C-alpha cells in the first residue's frame, strides 16, 4: 500500500469531521484556572490535599459500586458464523397459489475480530403453496410424497413432542404456526448413511417422528406420508442455529421450486453486545420483512422486531419508521434487502446486502452486493450493480460437469495458470480443494476477473461466482464443509 494512498484516505476522511467551537477552547484554557489561581493551588496546605485525597478515595469507591448497575450498550458485534434465519412466518391458510418456497443460501463475509470470515446466512421461505412435485417416484402407491417432520427440542419439551402421534396433530401444530415444527419434502436418500433424519444432523436439537415413536406406514420407516398436492405448509425452520449441512440439505430438498410472489420472511442475527461495563451478552435480532402491496407496487416492509438487549431508545426511534422497499418491475428479479444494523462493522462502513432471486423454473439464483453507499429508501437496486458473490443452484443451463479426464491440479498451480492468462481467455480446470475436486473457471475481463466454482452436491449442481476467487472458494468450502486452511 502506497504512502500517498494512505495520506489521501486519511485526509479525505478526517478533514471533513466537524470541529467544535474554537472560542470555547480559548475561554476554557484561559478560564478560572488561570496561572495565578494555579499558583495558589500549588501552595495549598498539605491537609487540604489529604482531605481531598480521602474524599476522592471514598468517592471512587462509591462510583465503583454504582458502576456495576450501569449498562451502557455501545453496539452489537456479530459473532462467528452463527447467523441464522428464522422462518417462523405466518401460515397463510387462505392462499391458494401455485407457488412453493425457495430456500436459499446467502454466503457473505462477516467481520469478526476485525478480520473477515465467510459465513452463510440462509433464507428459507415459508408460506402456503402446493407441495413440490418430486423428481422421483414418491412411494409405494405413487400417491404419496415423503415428507419429514422434526420437532425442535428447544421449542417443545419431549413430553409435548411425544403427544404428536398422528397426522391431524401435526396439521394442527402447523396451522398454529409453531416455529419448532420442521417439515421438509424429500425424495430418496438425503445422505449416504440413509434417509433417517438423525439427531446428529441437527446436533440433537431435533427429534424425528421416528424417535418419537410415531412410525408411519409408508415406504420408509422414518418417513411420514403426506398426500401430494395438498395445499399445506412447506418449511419452517426454527430460530436456532442451523449448520450449513442442514441448510444444504434443506435447499436440496426444495431445489426444484418456483416462487411467484413476495412472501414474508424474517432473519435472525445472533450478535454479541458489549456493554461498557460488565460482561458481553448474546442477543438475537429478528428482522422481519412483510410483503407490501399498494397500487401497482410490491415490496417489503422490514423492521427490527425483536432484540432482548438492544432495544435502546435510539433503536426504538428508528424502528418507528419501518423501511419500505419496492420491488422493481417486471418481477423477473426481485432484490430483497437484508436490513443490517447501521453500525454493521464490515470493512468499517455501512454494508448493504441485497438478495436477487431469479424466478427461473427449477432453480434459484442469489446474489450478494456490497456497497459503500447508504441505501436510500424506497430502494431499487441499480441494474448496473455487480454482485460480489452469486450462488446458483437447480437447473443450470451451463455445461454439466464432465467426468475427470486428467488428475486434478492443485490450487496453487491453478492460480499460476490464472496469473499468466490473457484477457477474455477463460482458464478452467479440475482443482483439488481439500478432499473434493471442483471445476473452476476464471476469466479476466476488461472490467475485472470473474471466478466460477462449479460443483455437485447430493445430485444437484451448484455454481458460486465472484470477482474474487477467494470469496467464491471460501463460500464453496463452507457449503461443502471443507476444512481448507490456505485458500
Amino acid at each position, binding site marked *: 500500500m502506497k504512502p500517498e494512498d494512505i495520506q489521501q484516505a486519511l485526509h479525505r*476522511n478526517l478533514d471533513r*469531521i466537524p470541529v467544535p467551537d474554537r472560542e470555547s477552547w480559548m475561554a476554557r484554557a484561559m478560564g478560572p484556572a488561570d496561572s495565578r489561581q494555579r499558583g495558589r493551588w500549588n501552595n495549598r496546605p498539605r491537609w487540604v490535599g489529604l482531605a481531598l485525597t480521602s474524599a476522592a478515595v471514598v468517592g471512587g469507591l462509591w462510583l465503583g459500586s454504582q458502576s456495576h448497575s450501569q449498562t451502557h450498550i455501545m453496539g452489537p458485534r456479530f459473532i462467528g458464523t452463527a447467523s441464522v434465519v428464522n422462518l417462523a412466518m405466518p401460515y397463510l391458510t387462505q392462499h391458494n397459489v401455485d407457488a412453493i418456497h425457495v430456500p436459499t443460501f446467502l454466503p457473505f463475509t462477516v467481520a469478526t475480530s476485525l478480520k473477515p470470515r465467510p459465513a452463510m446466512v440462509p433464507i428459507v421461505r415459508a408460506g402456503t403453496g402446493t407441495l413440490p412435485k418430486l423428481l422421483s417416484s414418491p412411494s409405494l402407491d405413487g400417491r404419496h410424497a415423503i415428507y419429514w417432520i422434526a420437532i425442535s427440542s428447544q421449542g417443545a419439551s419431549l413430553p409435548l413432542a411425544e403427544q404428536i402421534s398422528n397426522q391431524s396433530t401435526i396439521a394442527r401444530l402447523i396451522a398454529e404456526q409453531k416455529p419448532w415444527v420442521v417439515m421438509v419434502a424429500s425424495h430418496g436418500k438425503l445422505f449416504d448413511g440413509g434417509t433417517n433424519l438423525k439427531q446428529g444432523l441437527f446436533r440433537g436439537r431435533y427429534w424425528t417422528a421416528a424417535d418419537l415413536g410415531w412410525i408411519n406406514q409408508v415406504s420408509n420407516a422414518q418417513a411420514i406420508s403426506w398426500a401430494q398436492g395438498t395445499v399445506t405448509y412447506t418449511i419452517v425452520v426454527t430460530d436456532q442455529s442451523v449448520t450449513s449441512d442442514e441448510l444444504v440439505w434443506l435447499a436440496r430438498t426444495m431445489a426444484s421450486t418456483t416462487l411467484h410472489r413476495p412472501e414474508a420472511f424474517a432473519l435472525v442475527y445472533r450478535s454479541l453486545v458489549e456493554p461498557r461495563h460488565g460482561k458481553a451478552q448474546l442477543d438475537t435480532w429478528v428482522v422481519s420483512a412483510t410483503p407490501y402491496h399498494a397500487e401497482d407496487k410490491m415490496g417489503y416492509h422490514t423492521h427490527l422486531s425483536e432484540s432482548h438487549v438492544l432495544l435502546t431508545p435510539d433503536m426504538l426511534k428508528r424502528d418507528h419508521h419501518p423501511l419500505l422497499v419496492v420491488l422493481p418491475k417486471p418481477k423477473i428479479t426481485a432484490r430483497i434487502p437484508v436490513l443490517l444494523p447501521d453500525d454493521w462493522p464490515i470493512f468499517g462502513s455501512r454494508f448493504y446486502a441485497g438478495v436477487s432471486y431469479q424466478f427461473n423454473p427449477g432453480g434459484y439464483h442469489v446474489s450478494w452486493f456490497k456497497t459503500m453507499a447508504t441505501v436510500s429508501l424506497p430502494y431499487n437496486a441499480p441494474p448496473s450493480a455487480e454482485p460480489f458473490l452469486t450462488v446458483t443452484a437447480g437447473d443450470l443451463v451451463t455445461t454439466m460437469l464432465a467426468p475427470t479426464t486428467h488428475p486434478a491440479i492443485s490450487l496453487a498451480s491453478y492460480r499460476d495458470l490464472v496469473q499468466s492468462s490473457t484477457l477474455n481467455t477463460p482458464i478452467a480446470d479440475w482443482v483439488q480443494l481439500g478432499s473434493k475436486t471442483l471445476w473452476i473457471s476464471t476469466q479476466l475481463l476488461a472490467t475485472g476477473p470473474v471466478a466460477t466454482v462449479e460443483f455437485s452436491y447430493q445430485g444437484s449442481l451448484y455454481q458460486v461466482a465472484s470477482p474474487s476467487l477467494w470469496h467464491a472458494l471460501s463460500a464453496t468450502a463452507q457449503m461443502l464443509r471443507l476444512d481448507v486452511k490456505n485458500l
Partner: protein
Amino acid sequence: MGMTNDAWRQDNETKLRQMVEQMGPRLYRFAWAMLTNKEAADDVVQECFVRYWRQLDKEPGRNLGPGWLLRVTARLCLDEGRRWGRRQETLERLSSLGRTNAPCDDPAVGADQEIFSLVMQLKPKDRLTMLLVYYQDLPLAEAASILGTTETFLKTKLSRIRKRLKKEWERGQ
C-alpha cells in the same frame, strides 16, 4: 525593561489564539482519529490548550510550536485510550464511522474509506504512528521524537504497518 503583567497576558492570549486557530482543527481531528469519540477528543484538545496556556506562563521565552502541541495531544490520547480500553474504543470507533461517513458512490472514495477504516482498526500506537506521519505530515525525525524512538526504527515500523494494511486490504477485496 520587562513587560507588565497585562502586556504578558495580552501577548500570551495572542499566542494562544493563534495556536487555537492554526492547530485546533488539526489537533481535534487527530484526537478524534485516536479516540473516535467527539467528546473525548474535545476534552483532549481542551486539556492540551490548558497546558499550553500554563506553559506560556511558566516559560515565557520558550518557543512552543505545533510539535509541542502534537506531542501533548498524542500522550493525552494514549492515556485516554488506555483508560477506555481498546475493545470499547473499537466499538465506539466503528459506530462513529457509520455516522461520520457520508454516502458515497465514487469507487475511488470508497477505496479511501476502506483504507481509512483499516488504519482506524490498527492498535492505538500503530495508528498514532500513521497519523503523525501520514495525516499530520510530520518529518520522520519529528514524528520519531514524539514517539520516543529513532528515525530508522520508525521507518521500519511504517513499512511493517503498510505491509499489514496491504494484506488486510487484499483479503477484503
